[in-house]
């Protein structure tokens, strides 16, 4: 492997601007705009309490996205492990503080901002895994001993998030990482093995759990632990969607959401309001926007010259897909209720910002797509 002079590849700001994938940015703005419009509607046609604050957060998040995009991809490569370590430490702190008596708390109060370490971890894990697999050859990836470290890298944060308890985030972490493992070339049968192993160990693990722990796990799958409660949510959600029909009831005219039959109409269940007011057509437009963003994500991955860039773009895009799929499948009653927001639409600052930072990284991969990165960047003379 020849040493490469990195500086030769440095780009000017103008080059970066010209290189930026502005169309992807426009898609993201459109989607977020859709989301703010929906938050305006669920508040009964008012900017408060959600739409205005969501707009501010999106502005902050979008600025961060552009900042992240313009930072050289090699900087992110170097930052991958430190960011991962930081995320893990913050998760531990949250866990310890939670144990000490703040209840099941998922965030750190930074005064001006409530930081959710699990959101940092969603990005940091993708970065760290992309960096790790970037350093492996095709042969290495097929050997089990090279997989021990990345598996631990997934297991640690996933385990911490799971005991918070936050099943939604844990699933996103594990499945997002799985997509990355898959793209990196981990052999098929290993996925099969893990799948069978997980299934097989469920009864065994279940036996060893304390009663209260079982309760907690059951609660994860059934947030209300009350058949009427959980059933009610899904039923009302399906009624809202179904009654929307093809064209919807019209903007601000959704009876299910405006008469409060819908639970969590501004956060996890916002898609139902959209489906009720804009019908199948509105839902399809949103799915179309999402699909376009996903396609751009994969296109970026294909265009990148470095394995790091390819895996980073694939990881972020797949995580984004998982958000979309789990949320929409949940509100349409295909899968059980798990707390996963609809990306760029649902009310909630941390998830919005982490998704935008993720897309910042995707954009960075695109802007710096032609910069080759050696397999062992640590040996570079920078």
């Amino acid at each position: 492997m020849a040493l490469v002079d990195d500086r030769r590849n440095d780009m000017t700001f103008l080059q970066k601007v010209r290189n930026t994938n502005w169309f992807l940015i426009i898609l993201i703005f459109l989607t977020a705009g859709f989301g703010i419009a929906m938050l305006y509607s669920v508040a009964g046609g008012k900017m408060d309490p959600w739409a205005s604050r969501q707009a501010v957060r999106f502005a902050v998040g979008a600025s961060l996205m552009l900042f992240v995009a313009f930072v050289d991809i090699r900087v992110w490569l170097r930052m991958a492990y430190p960011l991962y370590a930081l995320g893990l430490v913050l998760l531990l702190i949250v866990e310890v503080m939670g144990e000490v008596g703040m209840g099941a708390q998922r965030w750190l109060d930074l005064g001006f901002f409530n930081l959710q370490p699990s959101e940092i971890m969603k990005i940091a894990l993708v970065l760290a895994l992309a960096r790790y697999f970037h350093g492996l050859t095709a042969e290495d990836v097929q050997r089990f001993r090279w997989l021990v470290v990345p598996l631990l890298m997934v297991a640690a944060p996933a385990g911490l998030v799971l005991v918070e308890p936050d099943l939604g985030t844990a699933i996103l972490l594990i499945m997002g990482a799985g997509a990355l493992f898959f793209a990196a070339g981990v052999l098929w049968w290993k996925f099969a093995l893990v799948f069978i192993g997980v299934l097989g160990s469920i009864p065994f693990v279940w036996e060893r759990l304390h009663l209260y722990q079982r309760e907690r796990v059951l609660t994860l799958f059934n947030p209300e632990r009350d058949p009427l409660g959980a059933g009610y949510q899904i039923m009302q959600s399906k009624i809202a969607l179904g009654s929307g029909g093809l064209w919807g009831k019209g903007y601000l005219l959704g009876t299910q959401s405006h008469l409060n039959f819908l639970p969590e109409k501004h956060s996890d269940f916002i898609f139902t309001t959209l489906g009720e007011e804009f019908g199948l057509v509105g839902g399809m437009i949103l799915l179309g926007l999402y699909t376009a963003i996903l396609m751009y994500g994969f296109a970026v991955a294909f265009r990148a010259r470095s394995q790091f860039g390819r895996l980073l773009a694939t990881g972020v895009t797949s995580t984004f897909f998982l958000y979309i799929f789990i949320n929409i499948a949940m509100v349409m009653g295909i899968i059980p209720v798990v707390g996963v927001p609809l990306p760029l639409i649902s009310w909630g600052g941390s998830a919005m910002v982490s998704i935008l930072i993720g897309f910042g990284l995707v954009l960075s991969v695109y802007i710096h797509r032609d910069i080759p990165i050696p397999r062992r960047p640590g040996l570079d003379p920078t």
Partner: protein
Amino acid sequence: MKRDADTHRIFSRRALLLGGAQAVLMTGLAARMYYLQVIESEQYKLLADENRINLRLLPPPRGRVLDRHGVELANNQQNYRVVLIAEQADSVAQTLDALAELIPIDRYERAKVLREVKRRRSFVPVTVAENLTWEEFARVNVNAPDLPGIQPEIGETRAYPHGPTMAHVIGYVGAVSEKDLTGDPLLELPGFRVGKSGVERTREEYLRGKAGVSRVEVNAFGRVIRELNRREGQPGEDLKLSLDAELQIYMMKLLADESASAVVMDVHSGNVLGLASTPGFDPQSFNIGLTQQAWSDLTSDPRNPLLNKAIAGQYPPGSTFKMMVAIAALEAGVVSPEQKIFCSGHVELGNQRFHCWKRNGHGNMALVDAIEQSCDVYFYDIAKRVGIDRISETARLFGLGAETGIEIPAERKGLMPTRAWKKGRTGEAWQQGETLVAGIGQGFVLTTPLQLAVMAARIANGGFAVKPRLILDTQEDGAPRVEPERLPIGRVPLQLVAEGMRRVSNVPTGTAFRARIKNSAMALAGKTGTSQVRRITLAERETGVLRNDQLPWAERDHALFVAFAPTAAPRYAVSVVVEHGGSGSATAAPIARDILIKIQEIERAGRGPQVGGNTSPPEDRG
């Protein structure tokens, strides 16, 4: 570089698979969306409307009950009340304090309101005070701006302006019970009232009206957002009774101190002009809800205020039954009008002795004399000749021993015994002595005061099977009234008993001469009755029968009187039964006289029964 190319190649393949899988799953979401929003859409639209739209029933105002002149006997009164809507009050406690300065709210009520407020959702109105006076209500209204959360409201409650005097006829309304439910959704409305007795019950559906419906949009908490549309209901119909309020009140006053009943009816139309039973009770109290104490007071009273004695009190008719025996005997031909029977004061039958009320006997008696002086021996004799079966058969023709079909519930049949009846009932054969006892209206024979009035009416109108009725001109009863049928009874027997009755209260030897009407244009014809409720032992008879005022109340005789007036052209029939009232001539006859004077005065004052229509008698009557 070859190895790098390897990872790139593997990545490309894997990323394509990953993208493909995601595309498939996205398509799955789209398909599911299509399924929910297009294929199943109709069903969910229905469910969404079910969620959102509530039907609110609008209770119709209940029909009024009127007397024959249109006087209100039951109406709906505005019930001024004050409700509190917690969410509109800054502080419920403060609002209640402010309200308490305007209207009296005691500590108990205050605690109840606070409890209710906590229990209900904050937009549900809680009643703070009800049945306010107009002054109190106006005070609250004037101060409403300073009473956040307070809403003055006008509701409707059933009211009975004449209180206890009409209670047994009108009945009362009360909360709906399980057995009242007929599927009418109105009945499930909280606070709805249905008729529980009297015409309120028998004409319930007529008075109730049809519910209106208001479709309202509600949110998930049940709060009404707006009214979508409304269909007005149909108010209940007014019900016009044949009752004459003035007469009814007068009758109740006459009987006020007794446990008694009286009925007045038009002998031609059957219109019941007065139907009194004492003691009365306050029908309003059933609407508001009786206290435990008030209920046990009503049910433990030996004079039984809740019983409508006029239709459900069953009494031996005593001597008032003698007209039936006389008619049965004349019809059967076992006695001729002129045939005289000697009364020695008693008759012997087997080893039993049957006494006349007059110890020393009446001497020779013909039929009219026997009625006039109520000679027991005469009737023992002719009863024995005609037999119990023919007496009962005749009595049934005159309306005794069967329900009259008057339009109020809980009517009793009374009893007209026959040989077959006794055999079936007790397994024992009929004794001839029992026929003798029945001949003077004692023993097994039982009648209700209403039946006795019907009997008097059928005698007075010349033998037409007139039926008592309380309700005038209702639509459900709108069919033209059938002319009463003529009874299969000869004119002569009827004229003879009518003449006997005339003499009872118009000749000095008549048993009710003292209770006569001196104005001959209004003169009454009647018959006294005194029915024993105890057995007089041989020993007592020898030492002298105890007088009623020597006996405890419950052992005294029932006093009865049946009558009609005016004698020249009978118009009104009346019956009076005073429980344990002593003798018919001393107690019941004066009451009947006063009632007959009253109704004739009312008629003369120009408010006669023409109101009821269809009262002109055919030529050959009376």
